[in-house]
């Protein structure tokens, strides 16, 4: 468990966020700005967008949510207890591309005010105690390296130890290539944890958000007892460009979007953000009652 109270933690995180220079992040721009919806191109008043849970009031396009916003959305006020908040990635390969991995980690921590691309913890969802993992896409594209793998695994183990359901909200570009083979091994690690969870009969619920691809999809993101997706989220194994290069043709419209996956039998339901907590709580009630 985190060493500070949840209340302190939240205000600390929020303060950190406000202090950042974050002009590139839609969600942190001043309230009086206008934002153009990436889908319907409508100019939206930033405050209005925020109040609408970052969903375009005109066309329903779901903008990204940060992990903290997501936790705020899903978890009953003040009930979230973070687990392993200090766990961090480390540059064990001495890997560098345009900049060293060590520097990338540092930058990501500064930018997101989080130590890794997933926040894990325990909290109440309409009074049901749940293990929760929420990915942060702004942290190196939500990529899964040793840190994410370890934290996800601990989240599942927390579920098993406390006999409570597990919920994960995904947002990830896949494996963290800067950790080489070790990032691949995380797929095995998290899936093994889910194999153990499954044997207990405890439920594991996945909420897929835009985007979820690569090794994350091919491991814990596709293993939910129930798979929920936000509308129009990109969800796939290979990236669209790789596929286009392979098949040498344009991809169909809506390819790899939530609606496409629903049609192809890969997810249970698509749920708008405003209904997400209610739906999750009904699902959890089905399992725990």
């Amino acid at each position, binding site marked *: 468990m985190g060493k500070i109270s949840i209340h302190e933690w939240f205000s600390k995180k929020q303060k950190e966020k406000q202090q950042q220079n974050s002009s590139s992040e839609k969600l942190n721009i001043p309230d009086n700005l206008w934002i153009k919806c990436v889908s319907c191109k409508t100019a939206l008043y930033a405050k209005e967008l925020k109040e609408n849970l970052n969903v375009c009031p005109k066309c329903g396009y779901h903008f990204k949510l940060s992990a903290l916003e997501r936790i705020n959305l899903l978890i009953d006020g003040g009930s979230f207890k973070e687990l*392993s908040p*200090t*766990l*961090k*990635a*480390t540059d*064990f*390969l001495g*890997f*560098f*591309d*345009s900049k060293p991995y060590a520097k990338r980690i540092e930058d990501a921590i500064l930018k997101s005010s989080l130590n890794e691309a997933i926040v894990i913890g325990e909290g109440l969802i309409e009074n049901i105690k749940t293990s929760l993992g929420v990915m942060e896409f702004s942290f190196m594209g939500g990529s899964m390296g*040793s*840190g994410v*793998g*370890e934290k996800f695994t601990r989240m599942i183990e927390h579920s098993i130890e406390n006999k409570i359901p597990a919920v994960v909200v995904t947002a990830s570009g896949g*494996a963290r*290539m*800067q*950790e*080489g*083979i*070790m*990032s*691949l*091994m*995380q*797929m*095995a*690690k998290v*899936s*093994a*944890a889910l*194999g*153990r969870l*499954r*044997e207990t009969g405890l439920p594991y619920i996945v909420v897929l958000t835009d985007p979820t691809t*690569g*090794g994350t*999809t*091919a*491991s*814990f*993101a*596709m*293993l939910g007892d129930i798979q929920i997706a936000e509308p129009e989220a990109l969800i*796939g*194994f*290979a990236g669209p460009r790789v*596929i286009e290069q*392979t*098949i040498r043709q344009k*991809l*169909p419209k809506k*390819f*790899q979007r939530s609606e*496409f996956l629903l049609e*192809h*039998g*890969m997810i249970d339901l698509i749920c708008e953000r405003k209904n997400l907590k209610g739906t999750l709580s009904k699902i959890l009630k089905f399992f725990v009652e």
Partner: protein
Amino acid sequence: MKQNFDEIKNLLPFESHLKDLFKKIEELKKLSEKEEVNLEEEIRMVRKRIDAMRQDIFSKLTPLQVVQVARFIMRPTTLDYISLIFEDFIELHGDRNFSDDAAIVAGIAKLDGRSVVVIGHQKGHTTKELIARNFGMANPEGYRKALRIMRMAVRANKPIISLIDTSGAYPGLGAEERGQAEAIAKNLREMAVFTVPFISIITGEGGSGGALGIAMGNRVLMMEYSIYSVISPEGCASILFRDATRAPEAAKASKITAKDLLEFRVIDEIIKEPVGGAHNNYKEAAANVKAAILKHLNEISNFSSRELVADRYNKYRNMGIFVE
């Protein structure tokens, strides 16, 4: 099986300077025939020289050169190994859902009289075979077939041997439609809790999730010149370095050789290859693989079902390097 192996034609790029020595052997052979003289000793000497040079070359391969060996079209395939290692192999087909994926082969066999299930990616030695096998890149059906047959092994309480040789799961339209990610993910979860001994061997390319999808053994072994990586050096270079030509650098940085992976304890043992790589001597390569399988199988065969699951769980549970 290796057939009509042309040693000159099949030299790897980095050993092309051996060409002259091979030509020398050919000349000696011709001369010997023509003049009816015995030049065997001379030939043996040249061979010895070739072997020595090769040993030297192969001891200093760059990671990208290892990649070339691992991908070489004459490298023994899963079916080559199966025919040389196992007896009474019967190939089993189909995922019982949609199709039979030729990029993964699976079946039952005997290994020194012991019943085992063996599965593996299948490439090929000719363009025709490679196309028929989709270059060893499986669709979801391949992973589902593998799972179906591995589960049968679990019910029948027989060990599983998997041979890994793929550049990756196929990134096609249909593969996405039919749940490539779901198929691989499910395999990972299920393999973790198999109650039978399970040994995986990277024989050629261990390409990302497509490799891991059948590779969650209690023991994971790698052939000396095989590779195992989260992304191909070319892919890594083009994504991270934004320059595909920087593959050599990416190969080096990513740590994809058997030696590197043994250091990280991602694998348990390196299987020696014949001089110049497995493609120069299928029999010797297969014998080495067989010996390694038997050694590790014997070590874990006394484990109870529970111990096997715990052993495998702990193996993967402990993978990862982070600070806290």
